[in-house]
């Protein structure tokens, strides 16, 4: 299994060794925690057609060579702006679409390989909760039947499946005798999302992918659902991949964070290190764009200008350089690599500034420190 764990070590610099116990809330357990999901060099391009003969004119680089590991029992938060490939990534992991290349291993077994893990078993153990709580439920089924559907498909008797469904509705805070017979349109957004969570748990999965699962909810309901997710994680010993554009929510729920930009991972590391000392200028700008709830603490100048560029046929070099205040010639000449990822405590960034040997004039300085230097000037 260790062979599968080895990550591509593209750059040649040492990730700072941070003791697992340091930094406020270290991830629970230790390095002994086994990996749950290992993703290697995952790629998905979508062809863009156009022109007179409707030929292929380019590719949307939706997910472009992404590698990461999710360990058992942790929550890995994935953040990024729209179009960065977060949702494509989730769909690839569920094999709801086929990757162009790359490997996914779940629980130590390669998915889809000849003697690997069959898709049916993958989906039993890896379930997903979507953003739109309404369109992801069958409007013609009472919610109890929706929750019982998965176990039925996987061969459980009708009576047993119904019992499971009722139990789970109770677990997510919906009284089964009251809510079970209702149809999705009779429930509020928060209640529907609770049903979706119950349904995702119906096959007793080991891991959940939560794709913007709380984004459409009102703030007071969002807080309730986040509390529920934390409680269920403890109770069922779950592992989460939590995808969101909301940096505050990701900070609250995650042990480790992965930041994506235009189909690539630009930074990955333990949550406190990312939030207190971002290495990549994009991460730093995202964090600075958060709005405080204090009217005396307003943002005066926008941390970034412009929109994320078009993901169709991105130019070579660093994809962030068009919006980056620290961009130099090296950033155009060469795409920065993510750096050597060693273990759960590694904090790596795909930025020439993070690589002391890159030749960037600020090489060896994190974006956080570079911005502080600029501000001091």
């Amino acid at each position, binding site marked *: 299994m260790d062979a599968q764990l080895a990550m591509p070590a593209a750059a040649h610099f040492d990730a700072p060794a941070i003791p697992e116990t340091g930094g406020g*809330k270290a991830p629970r357990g230790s390095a002994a925690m086994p990996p749950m999901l290992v993703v290697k060099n995952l790629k998905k391009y979508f062809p863009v057609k156009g022109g007179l003969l409707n030929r292929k004119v380019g590719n949307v680089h939706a997910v472009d060579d992404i590698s990461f590991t999710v360990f058992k029992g942790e929550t890995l938060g994935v953040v990024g*702006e*729209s179009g960065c490939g977060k949702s494509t990534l989730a769909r690839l992991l569920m094999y709801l679409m086929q990757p162009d290349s790359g490997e996914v291993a779940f629980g130590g077994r390669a998915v889809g390989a000849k003697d690997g893990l069959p898709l049916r078993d993958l989906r039993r153990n890896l379930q997903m909760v979507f953003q739109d709580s309404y369109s992801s439920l069958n409007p013609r089924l009472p919610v109890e039947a929706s929750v019982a559907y998965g176990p039925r498909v996987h061969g459980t008797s009708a009576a047993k499946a119904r019992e499971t469904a009722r139990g789970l509705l109770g677990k997510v805070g919906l009284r089964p005798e009251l809510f079970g017979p209702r149809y999705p349109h009779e429930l*509020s*957004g*928060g*209640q529907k999302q609770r049903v979706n969570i119950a349904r995702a748990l119906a096959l007793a999965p080991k891991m959940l992918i939560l794709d913007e699962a709380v984004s459409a909810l*009102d*703030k*007071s*309901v*969002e*807080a*309730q659902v*986040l*509390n529920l997710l*934390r409680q269920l994680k403890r109770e069922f010993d779950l592992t989460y991949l939590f995808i969101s*554009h*909301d*940096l*505050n*929510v990701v*900070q*609250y*729920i995650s042990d480790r964070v992965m930041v994506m930009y235009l189909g690539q991972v630009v930074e990955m590391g333990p*949550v406190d290190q990312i939030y207190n000392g971002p290495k990549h200028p994009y991460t730093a*700008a*995202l964090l600075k*764009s*958060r*709005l*405080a*709830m*204090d*009217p*005396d*603490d*307003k*943002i*005066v*100048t*926008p*941390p*970034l*200008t*412009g*929109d*994320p560029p078009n993901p169709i046929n991105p130019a070579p070099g660093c994809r962030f350089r068009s919006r980056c205040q620290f961009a130099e010639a090296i950033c155009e000449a060469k795409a920065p690599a993510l750096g050597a990822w060693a273990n759960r405590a590694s904090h790596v960034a795909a930025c020439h500034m993070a690589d002391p040997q890159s030749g960037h004039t600020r090489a060896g300085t994190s974006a956080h420190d570079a911005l502080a230097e600029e501000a001091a000037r």
Partner: protein
Amino acid sequence: MTIPTEQATRPLVEVRDLSVRFETRDRTVHAVNGVSFDVMRGEVLCIIGESGSGKSVTMRALMRLFSSRITRVSGDIRVAEHDIMAVSERQLSDIRGSTISMVFQEPMTALDPTYTIGDQIAETIVRHQHCSHAEAAAKALDLLQLVKVPNAERRLKAYPHELSGGLRQRAMIAVALSCRPKLLLADEPTTALDATVQIQVLLLLRKLQQELGMGVIFVTHDLGVAAQIADKVAVMYAGRIVEYGSVRDVLLRPSHPYTIGMLASTVHGQERDKDIDAIPGTPPDMSRLAEGCNFAPRCRFAEASLCTKASPPPVSLSPGRETRCFRAAELLTRPALVVSQSEVVAHAG
């Protein structure tokens, strides 16, 4: 620009006891239940509330953007010199887009996909200022530059689908500002945008608002957005304004249990191994509102003898500040609350 003194002191918008009901065959939804507020010239009022609280309906009432078949509106609305409830449909269409204009949440559906951005801006100008198309096109270019669209000349000829989300929203702001409105209505204009783009648009809106001296009513569910852009804040719950005051008063020293709960339940750097202090329960069904305070069933400070009997009237705690809660004065001075609130503020940084 010199404003006559009488105009300067008189609010730009006066809304008194506004109620909006939607009546269908099977039920009546009481969307807005007696809302009163003023907006001064050059002031930004943020209406904060969750979905179904009546915040968007209140705003649409200022333009009478309702289907008359099922909507029952009562109360008084005055914007500038117009009595909105009394004007004819014809006058109303003159007012819409010139005196009052609106920016919507989803620019892709608010803009017409079959016309270029330039044509859509020019159309509004021609309609209200009765100028030639060439003049309007020149003004459209100025407007796109005003809202900081890069390569404005090229973007005039672009269709909405050819622009990114942030540029589309800027184009919609350009349409809304084309006739120099006195009042701009903004319905969650940045909610669909990414964080790094949202702050750009918020800063732009605030700058334009100050330069043009517009009154703005800004509807949002996001307390951070309100903190960034508002002068005054109105918190709505179940079709009523439950708390109203300056942005600093309401966000730093909230006096209504709902505002206090919203601040505590918004995720912003809470300790990770503790549950978030969420408001329990769900908002009420607006077609079946019970007697008494509508927030009472979810309120940790509610007293059965008091809160479920009658709807609390607005109480003025200090000049320019009102709260609809029987216990507001007591909550505001409760030391425990002040402490927990300062924690909230400390985390917010």
